[in-house]
């Protein structure tokens, strides 16, 4: 059988391609194996301890008696394939020297190479990505389109851009690239705002914490300092860097809505909220309104036109008109209507928001009606991600939580510093249902969770979860929840658009169900995700039809049909397909 034969699609597979793909079906077969009698079901998400993973690195939060606020906000984490071997490696951000802390012993980030057997090896020193400032977050992207992922680390102090040398090492090109962003930066995202095929960079700036503005808050009920509420500090403007295509960037926010939007940015996702083919930005701010920066294209007199519309879109404030403490966020088409929906996590008693897209640049919050608001009422959310954890084709929701104030337990009886993870499953009714209690023992534990990244580190098609824990070891969770459901993994390679294909639209049909996904970038908090897209198809055994709508400048559409399930394939812009 020739895949695509007679289908009328433009990119049928040859018999050779089909055989090569079929030969990779082993992993998928294993996923479908029936459980033996007496075999205990694995938890949906199983904790992989350091002894098993080899990830011995621990985050140093530098918690001091003065309680300097940057101590409370990290760390971020990332899944990335830095050596291009097809297996997801792990990057973990650490704190470091700053104007309020001089480490007594060396503190460094960590890069762990995937050994392809469920274990990892620390290669940080060789890679040269240890860091130099009080690190916060990480954004991974192939900004020079050389096929190798580069790493941007945000921090309190200065950002660092590590360019991939293709030999397991990285070079600090921050100064040369012109992205030595000062101040206190948090989440960042790579995306191509002007559709020129080069990744640009947006960097969230948090509050003005410079010099004497490091307040001491405290002498409270328990007579100690605690972390100040960000409301006390002055807001700042975030940064937009245009990629010049020669390894350098130009900061281009001046005169735009981005520079005018003074915020306290913690989370950012690049998405297309109005389906106009231009990537927009949704920014979660702490104690001030969120920003929805809509990309309106080239400005008449040069430069770029951004419009900040969060208030009128209904995503800037709570439904009662109050700014909240936005931290983690994400975007995805959760209800399958072809439009990007949004999510924002806030602190306790503010409740999180599930914003459905009204298709007219406005949104409505349905968190209360689908139970998310109730489940999150007492929680503070940071890292979170919309993804299809069980490969049934519908987008689900994973959230990592933790109160920012380590002393909260001393003066609150029901809000805690360490908080549980939450898992929501999207049912056939299109509602998100809280399935936390069924998801495994790790969901009974509590963490000071911050960053969260998703990625398939064992290449079984089920997206695993990595969580950065403030002052603790990271949490690696292996996903067993997708067993029994089929999938197809895509690694997209842009040729005219960015190599990472950010902004590509993916349409697939399997088992009579047509689905859609936009390849957003960013999302969660301080973290970066597996760049591959895993398409869940449930009980269907193959993808009947697949379309890739590549973003501008080409806007090319590549079509495929009858793709076998349960494997990763590589698709290059123009239609070249390979295992």
């Amino acid at each position, binding site marked *: 059988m020739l895949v695509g034969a007679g289908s009328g699609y433009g990119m049928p597979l040859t018999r050779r391609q089909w055989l090569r793909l079929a030969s990779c079906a082993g992993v998928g077969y294993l996923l479908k194996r029936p459980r033996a009698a007496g075999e205990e079901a694995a938890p949906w998400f199983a904790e992989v301890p350091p002894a098993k993973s080899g990830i011995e690195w621990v985050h140093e939060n530098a918690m001091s008696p003065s309680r300097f606020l940057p101590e409370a906000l990290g760390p971020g984490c990332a899944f990335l394939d830095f050596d291009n071997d097809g297996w997801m490696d792990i990057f973990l951000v650490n704190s470091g020297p700053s104007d309020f802390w001089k480490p007594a012993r060396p503190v460094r980030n960590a890069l762990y190479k995937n050994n392809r057997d469920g274990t990892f090896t620390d290669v940080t020193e060789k890679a040269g990505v240890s860091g130099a400032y009080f690190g916060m977050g990480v954004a991974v992207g192939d900004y020079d389109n050389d096929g190798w992922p580069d790493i941007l680390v945000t921090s309190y102090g200065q950002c660092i851009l590590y360019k991939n040398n293709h030999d397991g090492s990285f070079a600090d090109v921050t100064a040369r690239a012109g992205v030595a962003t000062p101040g206190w930066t948090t989440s960042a995202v790579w995306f191509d705002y002007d559709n020129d095929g080069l990744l640009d960079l947006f960097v969230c700036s948090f509050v003005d914490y410079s010099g004497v503005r490091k307040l001491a808050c405290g002498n409270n009920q328990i007579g100690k300092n605690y972390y100040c509420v960000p409301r006390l500090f002055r807001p700042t403007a975030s940064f937009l860097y245009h990629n010049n295509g020669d390894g350098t960037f130009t900061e281009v926010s001046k005169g735009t809505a981005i520079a005018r939007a003074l915020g306290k940015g913690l989370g950012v996702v690049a998405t297309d909220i109005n389906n106009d083919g231009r990537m927009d930005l949704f920014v979660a701010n702490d104690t001030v309104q969120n920003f929805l920066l809509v990309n309106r294209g080239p400005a008449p007199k040069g430069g770029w036109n951004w419009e900040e519309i969060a208030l009128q879109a209904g995503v800037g404030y709570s*439904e009662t008109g109050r700014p909240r403490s936005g931290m983690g966020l994400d975007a995805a088409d959760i209800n399958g209507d072809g439009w990007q929906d949004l999510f924002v996590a806030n602190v306790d008693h503010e409740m999180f928001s599930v914003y459905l897209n009204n298709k007219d640049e406005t949104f409505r919050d349905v968190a209360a*009606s689908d139970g998310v608001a109730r489940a999150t009422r007492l929680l503070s959310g940071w890292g979170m991600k919309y993804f299809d954890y069980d490969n049934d084709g519908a987008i689900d929701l994973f959230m990592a939580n933790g109160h920012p104030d380590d002393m909260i337990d001393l003066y609150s009886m029901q809000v805690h510093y360490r908080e549980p993870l939450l898992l929501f499953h999207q049912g056939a009714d299109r509602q998100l249902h809280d399935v936390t209690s069924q998801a495994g023992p790790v969901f009974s534990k509590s963490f000071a969770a911050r960053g969260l990244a998703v990625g398939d580190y064992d290449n079984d098609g089920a997206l695993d979860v990595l969580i950065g824990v403030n002052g603790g070891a990271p949490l690696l969770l292996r996903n067993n929840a997708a067993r029994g459901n089929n999938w197809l993994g895509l690694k997209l390679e842009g040729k005219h658009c960015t190599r990472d294909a950010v902004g590509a639209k993916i349409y697939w049909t399997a088992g009579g169900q047509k689905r859609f996904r936009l390849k957003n970038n960013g999302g969660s908090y301080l973290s970066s995700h597996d760049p591959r897209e895993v398409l869940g198809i449930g009980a269907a055994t193959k993808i009947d039809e697949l379309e890739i709508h590549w973003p501008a400048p080409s806007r090319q559409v590549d079509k495929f049909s009858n793709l076998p399930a349960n494997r990763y394939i590589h698709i290059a812009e123009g239609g070249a397909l390979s295992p």
Partner: protein
Amino acid sequence: MRRPLLPILTLSALLLPGASAQPQTPQELVQDALQKQQAGDLQGAVKEYRQFLKIHPEATAIHSNLGAALAGLGLYGQAIPEYKIALQQSPALPGARLNLALAYYKMGHIADAALELERVHRQAPANLQAALLLGDCYLRMGRNKEVIRVLAPEEKRHPEDLAIAYMLGTAYIRDKQVDSGQLLVDRILRNGDSAEAHLMLGSAKLNVADYAGARDEFAKAVALNPRLPDVHVLYARALLLTGDSDQATKEFKAELASDPYNFESNLQLGAMLRQQQSYDEAEPYFKHALETRPGDPGVRYQLALLALETGKLQQARQILEALVKQSPQFTEAHVSLSLVYYRLKRPADGKREHEIVEQLTAAAQSRQPGVKQQ
């Protein structure tokens, strides 16, 4: 604190001949209204009192009766003018001033209630109900010394009354007369596992943000005496703060079962239902809340949000425009008004309101210590 309305005034009944089946004369009209009021047909009584007052507006007692019937319907805002007319005409009219104070109290106008209750208390120092209400008003107003002045004599006369002990003990403690307060608190606690004791402990825990502890105390109080004034509301408040909105809903409804016009219960239930997008169910609660406290900005804002979320943009606009005119610093109302203007395709107005929001936000930010330190 829930107290029953005073018995309906029957002064006019003494002046009137026997009733007939169909009221024909003004006298028959008012007698029929009285019978309806006593039988619980308050709507019917209100209608007939009003008919009568068109003919005899000078009938002092009937204004007071009408006020009592309106208050029985929870229409405190309409009851108050009737009581006032009655009191203007007959300042010593028995019960009318206490009823007026009760109406203010129910509407949350505690200072006005205290003013009227102070007059009642001076005229009738033996009136225990007036003294208790007055003590409660002062307690809510934080005037602890006044609570002590009013309730200390009552406590001597009624040492077994746990409500007096609760309020007076709380006032003593807040007034830093801890020893005196402790004596009364101990009396409540010694009295066994009383609802009052748990209510008191729960309130204390609520005040120090121990919401879970407060919730548990209020649960015990509800179990011991579900008719204790405000016990369901306090329990519901603690439940909301500890994340149990389902049980909070039940408790607010329990409060409304005995006090259909309880302001907080109506407002909270309406807001919760609106959040859940149960708009038709939410609206009656807001209307009840607004009847209890006409013009309350919080309720009007909720009604504006309800209108906004149900697509009644002009209605939302009207409410919000009035709110921001009345309260220019009401930032949330400016936010929502901006949103409404944008939805009405009036971007210039939306932008103007957004700019006001930004100015208010910037002003608030400029007062923060991290900004002041340069």
